[in-house]
Structure formats: structure tokens, C-alpha cells
């Protein structure tokens, strides 16, 4: 049993990191003060999704989690997703569809969508909606986000299964 009061260590965007923290610091606050500011504050109550990050493959609200809860886990933020030169497919599709209005919800949307696409296959509309129900957007009415998401999912499904485990088609 370890009693860690002052530090937390986890893999952040593929790199092992150790941060000093306090037991009641939220993961969102730690990320933002460490410069990972693509993760946004929207409500601080675990309701809007602007702070969504991926922890061990699951979309979670960084504003509700204590930084300490990330100990030993793998955390991914929007900063890991793409660059101007090489954006992720979901980023390309959102931009192309005109789904980015104010953009404040978009990093969270991207993290939830990524968790969805990595966790599920043969993604039905119903499953997609269930994965995306924790990200509020007030600008778009979700129409263009939905179009971009569906396109990204369908395109990935149509591609030869290069990421799938050996021998497994579906």
C-alpha cells in the first residue's frame, strides 16, 4: 500500500510523467496548469463534456476526477490527436463538415468519438449516440457533428482492417 500525497504518475499521451499535485486537485486543473489546455472547463460538474479525456480507453470527465485517480493509468488528451500537418480523421471530417462553430466543445467531442471508435465495431447509430450523450454543444444542433462522426466511422469500417488483430476481419 502506497500513500502518495504529493505526486501522481501516469502515462500522458504516451509519455510517462510525474506531477506534483494535491489530493483534492482535479485532473482538469492539473492538465491545464501543465499546459494541456485543449481540455476545457465548461461546468465543473461532470455534465457538459468540454473536459473529456480518455483514461485507459474510456472517455471520462477530467473535471470530476481527482488527479490522484489517474495514478498508473494511461491518459490521452486532445493534444495527442493530431497536428495542422496531420490531423486525425475525425478532426478532418469535423472541419470539412462545418461542424466546428465556437469550437469549445469540439476537443471533448473528439475524445468521446475516439473512445467510441476504438472500443466498438459495427457501430450502430444507437451505440454512437450513447457514447456521445455526455458532450453538450449549444452551437450546431449536432447535425454536422453527427455527419462528420458517421462519415469517420463508416470510412474506418470500409478500410481494410489494418489495425485489427491478426486474422480477424470482424
Amino acid at each position, binding site marked *: *500500500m*502506497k*500513500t*502518495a*500525497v504529493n505526486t501522481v504518475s501516469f502515462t500522458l499521451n504516451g509519455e510517462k510523467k510525474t506531477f506534483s499535485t494535491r*489530493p*483534492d486537485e482535479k485532473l482538469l486543473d492539473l492538465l491545464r496548469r501543465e499546459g494541456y489546455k485543449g481540455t476545457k472547463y465548461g461546468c*465543473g*460538474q*461532470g*455534465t457538459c*463534456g468540454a473536459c*473529456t479525456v480518455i483514461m485507459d480507453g*474510456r*472517455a*471520462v*470527465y477530467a473535471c*470530476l*476526477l*481527482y488527479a*490522484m*485517480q489517474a*495514478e498508473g493509468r494511461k491518459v490521452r488528451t486532445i493534444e495527442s490527436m493530431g497536428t495542422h500537418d496531420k490531423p486525425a480523421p475525425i478532426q478532418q471530417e469535423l472541419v470539412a463538415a462545418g461542424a466546428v462553430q465556437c469550437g469549445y466543445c469540439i476537443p471533448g467531442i473528439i475524445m*468521446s468519438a475516439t473512445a467510441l471508435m476504438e472500443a466498438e465495431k459495427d457501430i450502430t447509430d444507437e451505440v454512437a449516440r*450513447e*457514447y*456521445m*450523450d*455526455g458532450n453538450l454543444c449549444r452551437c450546431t444542433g449536432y447535425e454536422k457533428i453527427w455527419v462528420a462522426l458517421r462519415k469517420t466511422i463508416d470510412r474506418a469500417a470500409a478500410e481494410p482492417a489494418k489495425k485489427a488483430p491478426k486474422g480477424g476481419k470482424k
Partner: protein
Amino acid sequence: MKLCEFIRPESLAQARAVLRKLGPKGLPLAGGTALHFMPGKVPVTAVDLTGLGLSYIRHKGAFFEIGAATPLSDIQRHRGPRWAMHEICRRISTHQIRNVSTIGGNICRVFPWADLPVVLLAMNARLVIYSGKLKEMGADEYFSSQPARLFRGGDLLAAVKIPVLKAHHGFGSVKAARNAAAFSMVTIAALLELKDGRIAAARVAAGSAIPFPKRLPSVEAALMGKEPSAEVFRAAASLAGNDAKWCKQEGMSAEYVANLAEVSIVDALERAAEFARGRTE
């Protein structure tokens, strides 16, 4: 809730020992998603229960056993023979919450809007508590009042056991809420056992619109021995007022909530009856 320290025990025994020592200064922490509903001023020590191997769903004989630290999204995604737990789990809060919030966290402290206690009461679940050794208790006893009473002295919820539904058993749950992620206005769950086309046993429970989740004995009694028909369900539901005093919710009157509860009871019974009829192994 303010935290002053964060402890990660590696076994149930360790966790219990730590919590026992800390007393009211200790806080068993699973997902932690409900903590912002608990504005405590005195800092507490969080005891993280997610590293104890309590996240699992196993089919063992007549039961599905769900580890107390299993997140709701795992229950939502699980499929098994005559499995019915996903129906309510997909209706709880949002995806990100379901990924973190655990079944144990949902029932160790019962918030008025909680859905799972209602479902577990109707399912006649069994709760496994660790107090140095594992002991079991029925849902009726467990939910007779706020379960905190069971965890003084560092005892912990270890697992929830859900009876596997038999042929001719049917389960249905209904959550009435303003939108997908909203807290429930009324939650109803019903378990029906049919025999020779009649109701041989019934467990009906309600929550959210009453201060604490409970079964509805008048409704259950009115169902016994009857054929599962809409008329019978409506007649039974109309007795719910004998068992529960419905409260106003979200700006809507108690009278309206009572009506909503009765309609939801009928709907849950219909679903349970369909379940029972539809899958007669």
C-alpha cells in the same frame, strides 16, 4: 468534498483496516462522481477502492455476480442469458459518468434520484458485504434504510448478486426523465413470475419520486394470481398510493408525479410480462 490524503489499498482487508482506523475521516472512493453532491467542509482521506479487483461480471450458477467497483458502462455493455441490467444502466446519466461511476457507488449511499436500488429491489438481488469475511444480505434488508449503517467500522460492499431470470420470469424497468441524461422523475422496476398464464410472484419497486426507494406491496398483492393483462396492471398500479407518497419533482406537482408513477408502473409491468412471454427457454 475536500480531500486531504489519498490512499490506495491493495486488498479488501487492507481497505477495511484503513477505513476502520480513519472512521469518519475516511472516505471510500470508487468513481467519485457523486462527490460534488456532498459539500463537506472537513477534509477527508480518500481510500481508493478501484485497485481491489472488484470490477467484474461473472455468471455463477443461479446468479450474475457484479463486483462492487464495476463501472456502469461495463454492465450496460455486458450481455448474458436473460440479462436485463443493461436496460437501466444505459439510462443513467452520461457515457463519461457511466464509465467511472460504479454499481457500488450507486447503492452504498442512496441518492433520492438513484435508479439502481429500485432495480435491485425488484430483482431481489443479494448484496455481498465484506466485514473481515464475506456475508450476504437480501435487497429488502439492505435497502430498508440508508446503507451507510452497514459500513461503519470499515466494512465494504464487495459484490452484487443478481438472480438469473428463469423461464416465465420477466423483468421490466421504466425511467421517466426530461431527457436522456436527466435525473429520474420516477423510476419503476418490476419482476413477474408467470405460472400457467397467471402471476405467481411479483416484485415491484419505485424510486426517485419518493424520499427513499421501496417496494410497493399493495401493487404486488393486487397482481397475485391474476392474468397479466393491461386491465390488471392498471388496477394494481392504482393502488400505488397506498405504498408511496409521491413528491413534487422539477416544478411538477405531486398529483402529476403520482399519475406519472402509476403510468410507469403499468409500463414496467407490461415490459416485464413481454419479457416473460417472449423468452420461455
